[in-house]
């Protein structure tokens, strides 16, 4: 077994365990920590696939910016652990088993019958122009600003719309809403105090 296999298996196992942690935790802050572990181990796997720039972006944008936003909102809303899960749709279980078997068959078919041998890469030393080496910043920039410049501009328009939209949605407008939130918070605190009294 080569070093690359051990690296892959270690980080794949870490990602799967952390993904289970994301979906099984009741408290969203622990889910967020699990998701950060998944993102970091996927960034390592991207490195093994010659995607250095995307790997750095994964850490900076996903683990750095998006997850900080998540954790910030969780702390802002002061979410407590969730109560027992409601199990209203019991028929979903009978749907889940055939779908799982279909997906499993698909994965096995891809692994066994599709030829997935990657083409060898030129080594970075004798490749000459860095924009021809897969995954370098030059290579990505060359693709993004020539063939794919329209999706790039569309993404910037999308982000502008998201900024305006989220400011509009999260704006606090009326004083009575502030009063309602404060009422809810004091009710929460009173419930906690009464729970402590019961426990005592």
């Amino acid at each position, binding site marked *: 077994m080569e070093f690359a296999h051990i690296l892959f298996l270690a980080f794949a196992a870490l990602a799967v365990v952390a993904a289970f942690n994301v979906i099984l935790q009741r408290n969203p802050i622990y*889910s967020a920590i699990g998701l950060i572990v998944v993102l970091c181990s996927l960034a390592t796997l991207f490195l093994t696939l010659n995607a250095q720039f995307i790997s750095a972006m994964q850490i900076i944008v996903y683990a750095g910016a998006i997850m900080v*936003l998540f954790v910030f909102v969780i702390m802002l809303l002061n979410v407590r652990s969730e109560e027992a899960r409601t199990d209203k749709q019991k028929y979903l279980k009978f749907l889940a088993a055939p779908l799982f078997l279909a997906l499993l068959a698909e994965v096995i078919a891809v692994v066994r019958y599709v030829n997935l041998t*990657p083409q060898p890469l030129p080594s970075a030393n004798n490749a000459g122009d860095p924009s021809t080496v897969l995954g370098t910043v030059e290579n990505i920039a060359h693709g993004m600003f020539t063939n794919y410049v329209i999706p790039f501009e569309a993404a910037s328009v999308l982000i502008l719309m998201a900024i305006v939209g989220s400011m509009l949605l999260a704006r606090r407008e009326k004083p009575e809403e502030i009063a309602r939130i404060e009422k809810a918070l004091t009710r929460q605190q009173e419930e906690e105090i009464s729970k402590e009294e019961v426990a005592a």
Partner: protein
Amino acid sequence: MVPLSWYLALSAVLFTIGVVGVLIQRNVIALFMCIELMLNAVNLSLIAFSRLHNDVTGQLFVFIVMAVAAAEAAVGLAIIISLFRNRETLNVDEADLLKL
């Protein structure tokens, strides 16, 4: 060299875990994190195929997906904040005003 089918199998496993999370979680923030998990599973597939063909297009797709995920997180968390402001809950089962 690790076979690329391993990466695709890991991607399928992570995507399935994300789908299961969307089905079993009731907290709207945790649902959002499960969606991010599914986006990342697809990103892994795209990068594996980009390596298979030695073509940078898959990595550019991942870049665009990251931009979309950032926009989605910003708007979605703003929706969650206004939901919490109006309903004082984060349980998706209680946000059923549009349900017939």
